[in-house]
C-alpha cells in the first residue's frame, strides 16, 4: 500500500499521514472523530476502557491513549486533526501537545515559537529549546 512518497527522503520529526497510516489508525481516529459530540466526550471520561473497547482500538492504540502519548498515538496511525479532539477532552491546546511531543516544557515550547517571531530560524529556536531542557529539564 506504500505510496510513491514513501520513496522520498524522510522529513525529520515529521510523520506523513498517508494510506498506510490511515489504514493503521482507522479505529483510533474514528474514536477521536466521535468526540465532536459532547455526549461521547463525557462517555469517554466516564469509562475510558469501555469507550476504547467500543471502538476496537488495537493494543498499541489503547496503550498510547492510556499513556497520553501523542507520539505513540501518531505511531499507531493517529492523525493530529482527530487527535486534537482527544486532547481537547483533557483541556490541552496545541502548545501543550507540542510540548508533549518535543519533550520541552510548555513555557519553553511557547518561547521557541516567540523566538521564531523575533527572527530566529526554527533550527536556532529549536536548538536553544533543547539546550534549555538539557540544563533545566
Amino acid at each position, binding site marked *: 500500500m506504500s505510496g510513491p512518497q514513501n520513496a522520498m527522503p524522510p*522529513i525529520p520529526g515529521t510523520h506523513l499521514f498517508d494510506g498506510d497510516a490511515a489504514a493503521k489508525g482507522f479505529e483510533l481516529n474514528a474514536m477521536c472523530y466521535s468526540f465532536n459530540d459532547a455526549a461521547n*466526550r463525557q462517555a469517554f471520561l466516564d469509562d475510558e476502557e469501555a469507550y476504547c473497547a467500543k471502538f476496537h482500538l488495537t493494543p498499541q492504540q489503547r496503550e498510547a491513549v492510556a499513556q497520553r502519548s501523542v507520539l505513540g498515538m501518531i505511531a499507531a496511525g493517529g492523525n493530529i486533526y482527530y487527535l486534537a479532539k482527544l486532547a481537547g477532552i483533557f483541556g490541552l491546546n496545541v502548545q501543550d501537545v*507540542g510540548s508533549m511531543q518535543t519533550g520541552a516544557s510548555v513555557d519553553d515550547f511557547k518561547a521557541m515559537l516567540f523566538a*521564531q517571531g523575533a527572527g530566529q530560524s526554527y533550527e536556532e529556536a529549536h536548538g536553544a529549546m533543547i539546550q534549555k531542557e538539557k540544563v533545566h529539564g
Partner: protein
Amino acid sequence: MAEIVGAYFTSHVPAIGGAIHKGLQQEPYWKPFFDGFHKVHEWLAQVKPDVAIVFNNDHGLNFFLDKMPTFAVGAAAEYHNADEGWGLPIYKPFAGHTELSWHIINSLVEDEFDITTCQKMLVDHALSIPFELAWPDVEAWPVKIVPFAINTVQHPLPSAKRCLALGQAVNRALQSWTGDERIVIIGTGGLSHQLDGERAGFINRDYDTFCMDNLSVDPAALTKDSIHEMVRKAGTQGVEVLNWIAARGALGEAPVQEIHRNYHIPISNTAAATMLMEPA
C-alpha cells in the same frame, strides 16, 4: 455579468475564535494579528461583495477517513458549523448560493475535474473564523457562499499545480455565470506551521515570504514544489497554503495586485498571514 472584486486570504487557527469570543483583540499577544484586519474591513465595505467562493479544508468535522474527497464543493442552501470537540462557541450559519454552486459544479465537471458534490456540508473554524475576522459583530453574514473543501488531511494530497488549475477552472465558471453578483474569493489556512511530531512548532518565515511575494504576480512559482517538498518547507499543516493557491487561481489569469499584507509569528503554533488582492 458577475464581477470578481478581489480576494481575501487569512489564517484560520481555532484559538483566534477563542480570542474573539473573549474580546482579546487588543491584548499584546493578539493585537499585531487583529490590527491586520482594519484594512480588510475598509476594503470589504468598499467592494461590497454579495457572494464568497471559499477555499478551505475540513479538520474532521464534516469528513472522516471512511470517505475523503480530494475536492468537495458545497451545493447546499445553508451551511452550519457544529461542535468540533473543544468547547468553542458554535458560529452563525451561512446562506448558500445553490444556483451558482451547481453552475460551478457543472462547469468543473465539463472541464474534467472530478469533484465531490455536497448538498449537506458542515463547515468548521476554517471557514467560520475568516468570516468572523472579516465581518466582526454582524448579525448575519452579508454574503452567500459557495464553499470548497480541499483535502489537506490524508495523503496523497492534490498537487499545488492541480489546486491552481482547479481555481482557474472555477474562474472560467464564474466568467460564464450570467448573474450580476459581486464575488469575493476567499482562501483560508496557513501559513507555515506544524502541530504534530517531534518537529511540532516548526515555522518557516522564508518560505512564507516567498509565497506571499509570488502569490499575486507569479502564482505558478508556488506550484513547482511537490507536496512532500511543501511539507518540508511549510510544515505538515502548512500545506493548507493549497487553499490559498486555489483561491488565487479563482481570481483568474489576468494581472492582480496585492493591496494589503499582514504577517505575524506566532498565533498559536502558526505563522499567521492576511492578504488582499484585487484585479490590476
